[in-house]
């Protein structure tokens, strides 16, 4: 298998889907001539031309709505947000138009649009540019949400997202674009609602997604030195959730730590913890733990910003708190 970066995997997915379907277009700030703020769209303008690879002005609400309108009329737009921090400018379009159009029209419309870009904490960017906003998007019925953690997952999931007939919010991470990994040569798709067990274990289930998957695996390696074998579940699809994979694992390990970079209040992490406590109550040997972003805006200072985020060390500590060995 070829080893490529996360950004190359995303680019291959977009390129292959644009090649396959002439109705797929991509629009956003700097996606065409500049080749993408994070170089995900490099080379696509040259290959597909300016009618399908479209540079927009800095008008998130406007171009997001244009993507949605184009989807209502039959195109399959990929809307790139330079980062999810700026997606808040477009939140009305996503919540009130993309997510609701099918329902309020009694099923007449489908809205096949993908909103993608980097989400979550980066480095040295302070409060407005370093936020994990998945809770907002997972909250709203009518949206599908995906968050890959490896180049191989990124490619198979983005292809699925582009082919799906619903609005999909696709969460990447600024700090993951350079991450390398093996990617199959042949075409493959990773469906919605399929979590992936990234490491098998018997003593505790660590449930997470996106960038913290690597932290969880590092934590599992550390814990293993002391004889604690953690199972690491990568949710991949946040809406819909693969609940069965979660429950099967927790019923086996009887302990659960959920890791989410977002703030704890009304988050994916808190929701997963609620589901586990509700469905697996009789199997639990210890309270469920949530390792999450601290409930503060992100500071600029590097030591402080690291302290505000989940880490392998915090996960190890949370596991040790509920597993006696």
């Amino acid at each position: 298998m070829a080893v490529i970066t996360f950004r190359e995997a995303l680019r291959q997915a977009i390129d292959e889907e644009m090649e396959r379907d002439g109705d797929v277009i991509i629009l956003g700030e700097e996606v065409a001539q500049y080749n993408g703020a994070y170089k995900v769209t490099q080379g696509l303008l040259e290959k597909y031309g300016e009618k399908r690879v479209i540079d927009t002005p800095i008008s998130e609400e406007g171009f997001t709505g244009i993507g949605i309108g184009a989807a209502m009329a039959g195109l399959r737009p990929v809307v790139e947000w330079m980062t999810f921090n700026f997606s808040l400018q477009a939140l009305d379009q996503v919540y009130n138009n993309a997510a609701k159009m099918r329902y309020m029209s009694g099923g007449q419309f489908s809205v096949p649009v993908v909103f993608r870009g980097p989400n979550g904490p980066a480095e040295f960017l302070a409060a407005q540019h370093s936020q994990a906003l998945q809770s907002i998007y997972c909250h709203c019925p009518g949206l599908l949400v995906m968050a890959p953690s490896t180049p191989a997952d990124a490619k198979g999931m983005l292809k699925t997202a582009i082919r799906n007939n619903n609005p999909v919010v696709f969460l990447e991470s600024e700090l993951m674009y350079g991450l390398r990994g093996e990617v199959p040569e042949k075409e493959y798709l990773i469906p919605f609602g399929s979590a992936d067990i990234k490491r098998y274990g018997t003593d505790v289930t660590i449930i997470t997604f996106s960038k913290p998957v690597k932290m969880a695996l590092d934590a599992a390696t550390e814990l293993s030195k002391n004889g604690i074998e953690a199972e690491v579940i990568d949710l991949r699809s946040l809406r819909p959730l693969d609940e069965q994979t979660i429950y099967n694992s927790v019923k086996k390990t009887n302990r659960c730590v959920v890791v989410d970079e977002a703030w704890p209040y009304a988050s994916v992490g808190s929701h997963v913890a609620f589901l586990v406590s509700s469905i697996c109550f009789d199997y639990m040997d210890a309270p469920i733990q949530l390792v999450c972003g601290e409930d503060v805006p992100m500071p600029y200072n590097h030591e402080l910003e690291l302290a505000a985020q989940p880490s392998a060390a915090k996960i190890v500590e949370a596991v040790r708190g509920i597993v006696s060995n």
Partner: protein
Amino acid sequence: MQDTENKTLQIRLLKRMLLIRRFEEAAARMYGLRKIGGFCHLYIGQEAAAVGVIETLDMKKDYVLTAYRDHGTAIACGMECGPLMAELYGKESGCSRGKGGSMHFFDRKRHFFGGNGIVGAHIPLAAGVGMAVRHRKSGGCAVCFFGDGAIHQGSFHETLNMAKIWNLPVLYICENNRYGMGTDYRRVSSVTDFKAAGASYGIESFSANGMDVLEVCGITAGIIKKMRSENTPAFLELKTYRYKGHSMSDPARYRSREELDHFRDQDPIVMLRASMEKDGYINEEQFKKIDAEVKKVVDDSLAFAEESAQPSPGSLYEDILA
């Protein structure tokens, strides 16, 4: 020949405006009887705008979007009154299965794309429809109605800029009915000549008397013809007036009796009827006959809505995802 064509056209326009008027009057009555709930924004007074514009379109390839005052626009697009009234009643047979209500009429097949409840939120959608139309080279255009209240939303300004830089085939129509809810547009507009807003983005912009359906038809036909041949967006302000409050819950005490009477003298239906009588296209008896036909259509729509079933409880979970 010209005369016969004019007569046929004007009878069609009159009939359609009357149908909207009678539909809205019935909706108001049924709202009073609590058959209809929630927000209900009536189009009475503004009929010439939707009817005049949509008359000039080819709905096989063109698209129409509007805001929440959408009953008249939906009827002008050819939607049948039964499913519309049933939607107001929240019935399963409603055009949106009882899930949209007054603000969310849709007919995808007839190219009527809503029915949008957030002020200005459909303005970018129309540009997206224009982008899709151009991508498919179908030769159509998108027509987007919105009110004077929406012109100050960021979505309007962001979108008109993009519509021009990409030359999307979209006609933006501001139905200036003088009030954004209860606020006189002059109190909240630094520039009250809205043509300037369109022109500031390099978009050719026009203004017309939105109470005169023939003037609306004439100016829109010219704009659409030009848009089709030159592949450009355009902007049109239609100066109009709503007789009723912003919605059924608004008694509209912010305007004077004199002002209301002044606009009632320019009622689009009264004006067209007078002009047709003058040209010998219609007499009182013929008008009454048309009115009776239209009332029958509305009465039938009420019966249809009354008799239709409530949505099944299970439909709560339907139509969320494709």
